[in-house]
């Protein structure tokens, strides 16, 4: 047992076997591969009018749509006498591949590995006696959630569709928003067990090609078991993991995703996840709400200023309270100081503990509210926030001033358009509060300096994280970071993205 936990064990190599099944492509091999799988099905089919020619159909129940198998595969096999006239299996295969069967998608497979994956993906296989190759027909089910309104990104003015779990549906949504043929989709498989399709989307001629290559390369480097959650991709492609700040932006809204693509960013869609990622993600992106462009530019600017003020408030208010109440009492207006003294007179805890206890309680309430069903979650919030809060103040466990400070800081955090950014700010809020308790405003300033240094030191896909407030070495900082300009005047795409075509309008 070491001081920082268990002594580190040596990590064994990742077992890697390529191909997974080094067997000849036969029915027996497939049966071996799917041994113990109750959903593996096979059926022998005699061709129409020919008692000699028997081929085998394999599929996995539940993954294929039975009507398609019956109508597009079995019916022609049973009824088309031309197929029975084929002299040998090789010609029969060729005839089927060239359109004797009605199914839209057909592929010839020669490796057991690929054929097995086809079965899992919802294809059915036709095996021909004596042949080393099989035909794979795409007859998979298309069972998926229908397109609904986004649940986590409120839409006031704008399209109300959201991504679903099917990557192909999501790409079709993007195609409908961005009809330019220049929209490119590069596909990769990630996850040795999940075999998840990951699509990289970008606009050819707009995006920086090196950015696409960089995203592709990082996806290719991922060698994990399964892509079942967002972190499985996100944490592997970002530049820096030693930060709480998000480095890629996610959205469940196709319009927002496509706006990012049109801006010159690269999008990532993952099969099974109802959201899309945009890279790079810098701090300016996380502070921009999607409805900013729907609002009048003046209204959007005012709201943006408010949002930045809330950022400072949520980050520093508890720390500033601790600092002024514990170290710099002269900074408080006299009447307010007298009011605070009167409120804190019988509270037994130090100010820093009061603040930290309430901040923790706030986090616990929030976590409890998230984990519970919506109706119970609201009850927990009401009981926790109002009843316990009021009782704690009346019992002189915390002072009303601290309750107000922590509540304001918490509510200000909810104005952040990105909850991931809000989460990072919450962590730094704790850190600043601790520093403030140790050294007052000096601690707050030191913590703020640490934060700025930290943010200045990280990049997202080669773009400085502090963009648009800072730029990479040797590059010009762009203006209009906080205020939104009228759209007519925003004629250029962000310089930091190094797009091939910076102009976005006439």
């Amino acid at each position: 047992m070491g001081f920082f936990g268990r002594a580190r064990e040596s990590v064994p190599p990742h077992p890697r076997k390529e191909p997974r099944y080094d067997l000849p492509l036969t029915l027996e091999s497939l049966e071996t591969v799917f041994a113990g799988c109750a959903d593996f099905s096979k059926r022998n089919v005699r061709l129409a009018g020919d008692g000699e020619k028997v081929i085998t159909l394999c599929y996995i129940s539940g993954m294929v749509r039975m009507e398609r198998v019956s109508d597009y595969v079995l019916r022609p096999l049973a009824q088309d006498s031309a197929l029975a006239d084929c002299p040998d299996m090789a010609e029969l295969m060729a005839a089927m591949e060239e359109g004797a069967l009605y199914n839209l998608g057909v592929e010839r497979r020669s490796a057991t590995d690929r054929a097995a994956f086809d079965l899992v993906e919802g294809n059915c296989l036709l095996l021909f006696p004596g042949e080393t190759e099989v035909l794979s027909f795409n007859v998979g089910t298309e069972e998926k959630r229908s397109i609904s309104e986004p649940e986590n990104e409120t839409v006031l003015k704008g399209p109300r569709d959201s991504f679903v779990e099917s990557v192909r549906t999501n790409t079709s949504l993007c195609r409908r928003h961005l009809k330019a043929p220049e929209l490119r989709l590069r596909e990769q498989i990630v996850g040795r067990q999940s075999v998840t399709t990951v699509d990289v989307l970008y606009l050819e001629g707009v995006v920086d090609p090196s950015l696409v290559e960089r995203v592709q390369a990082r996806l290719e480097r991922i060698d994990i078991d399964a892509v079942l959650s967002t972190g499985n991709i996100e944490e592997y492609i970002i530049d820096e993991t030693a930060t709480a700040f998000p480095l890629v932006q996610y959205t469940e809204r196709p319009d927002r995703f496509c706006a990012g693509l049109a801006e010159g960013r690269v999008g990532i869609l993952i099969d099974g996840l109802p959201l899309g990622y945009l890279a790079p993600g810098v701090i300016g992106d996380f502070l921009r709400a999607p409805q900013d462009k729907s609002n009048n530019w003046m209204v959007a600017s005012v709201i943006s200023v408010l949002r930045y003020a809330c950022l400072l408030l949520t980050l520093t208010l508890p720390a500033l309270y601790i600092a002024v109440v514990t170290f710099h009492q002269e900074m408080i207006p006299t009447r307010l100081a007298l009011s605070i003294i009167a409120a804190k007179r019988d509270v037994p805890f130090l100010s820093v503990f009061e603040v930290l206890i309430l901040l923790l309680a706030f986090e616990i309430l929030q976590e409890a509210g998230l984990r519970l069903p919506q109706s119970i979650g609201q009850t927990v919030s009401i009981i926790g926030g109002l009843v316990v809060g009021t009782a704690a103040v009346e019992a002189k466990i915390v002072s009303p001033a601290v309750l107000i400070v922590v509540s304001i800081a918490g509510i200000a955090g909810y104005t952040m358009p990105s909850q991931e950014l809000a989460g990072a700010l919450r962590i730094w809020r704790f850190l600043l509060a601790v520093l403030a308790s140790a050294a007052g405003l000096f601690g707050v300033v030191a913590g703020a300096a640490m934060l700025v240094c930290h943010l200045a030191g990280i990049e997202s896909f080669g773009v400085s994280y502090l963009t648009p407030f800072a730029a990479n070495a040797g590059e010009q900082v762009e203006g209009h970071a906080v205020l939104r300009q009228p759209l007519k005047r925003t004629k250029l795409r962000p310089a930091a993205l190094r797009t091939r075509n910076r102009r976005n309008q006439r």
Partner: protein
Amino acid sequence: MKRWAGVLALLLLPLGGCRADLLPYAREIEDMSLVRTLGVDADADGVAVTAATGGQGLDDPALISGSAGTLSAALLEMQGEGDSYIYFGHVGQMLLGEDLARRGVGGALDYVMRDVEMRLDTELYVIQNGQAGTTISAAWQQDSAADRLETLHDGAGLRSDSMSRTVRNVLSDLERCGASFAPALTGDGTLSTAGYALLRDGVLVGWAEGAAAAGVNLLLSRVDADVVELPQADGTAALRVVGAKTRIRGVFDGEVLTGMDVKCRVEANLAEGAPALQEEAARRRLEAELAAVEQERILAALELCRTLEGDFFSLAGAAGLSQPWRAEALRRQWDPSSLEVSVSVTAKLERSYDAG
């Protein structure tokens, strides 16, 4: 591992016994008594200090006193009296007794300047014919002295013979001109205004009261509201003075400063009076009478400068602003007792509320 060890060492640093040297000292606000009004008097030991804490209906007010040879020692002595730390960072008003002011205000002001808690923007008052401690005690019996003085400060703009002065104002005047002034309060415990205390070389040398006090405000262009009553044949006319602008220039004979020229423009409204007073001729007459009254006031204030031999109102500095190319000569040669003074006042009745 090394990085985490470094972070841990930094976090544990405050526990290493070197906290007092490296980090500021923490003190919980509820363990403090905020002093809002501080009174300093001269006594046999040296100085006697009276401090009023709390008030506003939010914190229990208390009166603490102490005495010692110096202000620092007296305030330190007071720290042992209460059950909480006495904090001087919120002292808003400092009252000096007349005896102490006649002995010298330098010590008290110097303490404010050097102390880490006290503020230079503390308002300074001198008690006329009385002790600061007694005045604070008397005010404390009825209400908080601080509340009364804050009301006085807020309402200073409504009076033509009073204005707030901070320790910083007085200190900088004394440093620059060797003389200054501070508002005076009556010593009867009512905390009423009583003109100004005139300080020269840090010592109280006289008072500006009545017309002279109003003249001080005119000289410094600090008249926001004043009512001048002028008896007329058909009643009394009340003129509401709403502004005054005074310009002071030095009169030179070659390079020698020989006199001082004061030009004041006063603006007023007719607040009360017979309708006939709104005629043009009557208006001109009223303007002339108002100008004469204000001229008298200015002359009274200047007379104090001459007789008490001090530039209490920083007139040399004001003249230097009008003639910046002669600022240095004005500063060197300025001697109010020997300068020939010419004062001219122009009054303007801008409008009457019922003029239409």
